[in-house]
């Protein structure tokens, strides 16, 4: 091709450079189209809908035995002093003051005998709320914290850099930095169990059925039916996180 003298070599190079750098700039964000696609196997079995796992806690049933905490620890190697789940005890005094505590040590057993001036008392189990709009996943700078297609909030232990931003962002205090792996740790809803069709360890261990787990996409699941029958609320709804852990009989004192 004969070289056109009106376009100098320099101009050509300049144009090429601009074009190339433009392309490169765009390719900084090569996967901007990352979106939630269909679940694994969804296309093969169209008849069965992908599950959406959720959790419910009937606080009126909880007896504060903390079997859930022990089961969680036995199932998941939760490090000493960190908690994937815990049971809060609320004791309201006659003067309206609320005493809140957790049996965080000694096998998680509450031992104090009843006190005179307590007018109302109850237990509230806590765990990761597996929020629909989980802030922890939102703020993870490297995409290591994510929501699985089944609605379970998980941490990629091989990509987590251990910055702790998710720990700060979680309004429920359910995350921690694992002192040995140095990555974010949290409740996985026993993902390894539920994907095998088993119950999370805490649900299994609860002797009073205060903890419930199920598939919201299955209208006949234990949880779906229960949710239709009972009135419930979530923790800190003002955070806009849309938790999928529903609390029945939640007291105003509980945050």
């Amino acid at each position, binding site marked *: 091709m004969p070289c056109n003298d009106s376009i100098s070599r320099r101009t050509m190079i300049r144009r090429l*450079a601009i074009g190339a*750098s433009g392309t490169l700039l765009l*390719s*900084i964000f*090569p*996967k901007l189209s*990352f979106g*939630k*696609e269909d*679940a*694994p196997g969804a296309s093969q079995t169209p008849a069965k809908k992908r599950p959406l796992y959720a959790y419910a806690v009937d606080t*009126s*049933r*909880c*007896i*504060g*035995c*903390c*079997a859930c905490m022990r*089961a969680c620890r*036995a*199932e998941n190697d939760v490090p000493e002093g960190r908690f994937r789940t815990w049971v809060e*005890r*609320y*004791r309201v005094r006659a003067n309206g003051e609320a005493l809140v505590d957790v049996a965080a040590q000694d*096998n998680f*057993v*509450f*031992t*104090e*005998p*009843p006190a005179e001036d*307590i007018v109302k*008392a*109850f237990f509230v189990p806590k765990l990761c709320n597996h929020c629909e709009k989980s802030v922890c996943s939102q703020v993870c700078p490297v*995409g*290591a*914290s*994510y929501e*699985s*297609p089944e609605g379970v909030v*998980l941490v*990629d*232990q*091989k*990509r987590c850099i251990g910055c702790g931003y998710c720990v700060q962002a979680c309004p429920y205090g359910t995350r921690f930095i694992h002192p040995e792996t140095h990555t974010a740790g949290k409740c*996985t809803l*026993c*993902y*390894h*169990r539920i*994907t*095998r069709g*088993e*119950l999370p*360890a805490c649900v*299994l*261990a609860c*002797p*009073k059925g205060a903890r419930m787990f199920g598939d919201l996409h299955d209208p006949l699941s234990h949880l779906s039916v229960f949710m239709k029958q009972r009135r419930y609320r979530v923790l800190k709804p003002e955070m806009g996180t849309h938790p999928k852990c529903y609390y029945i009989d939640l007291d105003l004192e509980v945050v």
Partner: protein
Amino acid sequence: MTKQNDDMKVRPDYRHAYPVLVILFVLVTAGLTVRRLLVPKSFGEYGYFRADAMDDEKAIQPRHVGRAACVECHEDIAAIHAKDVHASVECETCHGVGGKHVKDNDVPMARADAKNDCLVCHRQLDARPGSFPQVDWQKHYQFVGVNDPTTACVRCHSGHEPLYLDHDLRTARLHPLIQQCNSCHMGRTDETLKKPDTHPKIFQCDYCHADLAKSFAQGSHTKVSCTTCHLFIKETAFSGRIVRNTNPKFCLLCHRKEAFKGNAGGKESGPPTIEWPAHIKDVSKDALDPNRPCVNCHQDQIHALYTKEAHHAM
């Protein structure tokens, strides 16, 4: 500024900066290439994360095996366990995780039969729901006459069937409390019913079962509440199931003679106790069936028998 000293104005010469641009360009290109190579393959498959991370999570082996695995070998215990009040308690809640034991039966399970193990659930706490059985163990030991404080709960209450229910908990009938409400509240405008102070104490047994309560007050079991023998299992705020327990083993929880019971400091304490099973031979020449309910003989010591007439007269 250009108008007066056009000739003095220095035209910039940028040529020395071109290599810098080239270096920058090379650096950025190299960076982006490296980035392309290092992003994991499965990243972005389902969202902004590495899809294989879910497989990492799934690969973890469960440690709790669940009741079904226990039943495979311990069918006998499972059958007992399933009918009593501990039916809702998972085996592994008391015995620890069973993963290892299932793989290798020589690995023992935990026993959890010390007093403190039971008190994890049954210690009296103000935050425990009132309907849940809970004890101040010192008071309870005093009441049943246990004088050795080191005695384990399982000496009387088996962990698998703590109350020795004589029929399956699951077949217990729903106590018709709600029907009682309706019988007054439907179509009646009796003002007294709407005043809290004058409202009948429907949650107290003797309101409906006055005749039985009256005869009960004359018996010897006045220190025991109705729901001790007529176990009440609360289902909602207004209803529950009633299980009447006439298993002799249940009566023997209090009345069996044990080394750790009674005669504390030479003084008789707790309820009267009997030698078992010698007691059957003592009272009858032809040996009675040891599963015969005690109330067949001892009904008068508890309360008069339930009669339909008395019930409907209420």
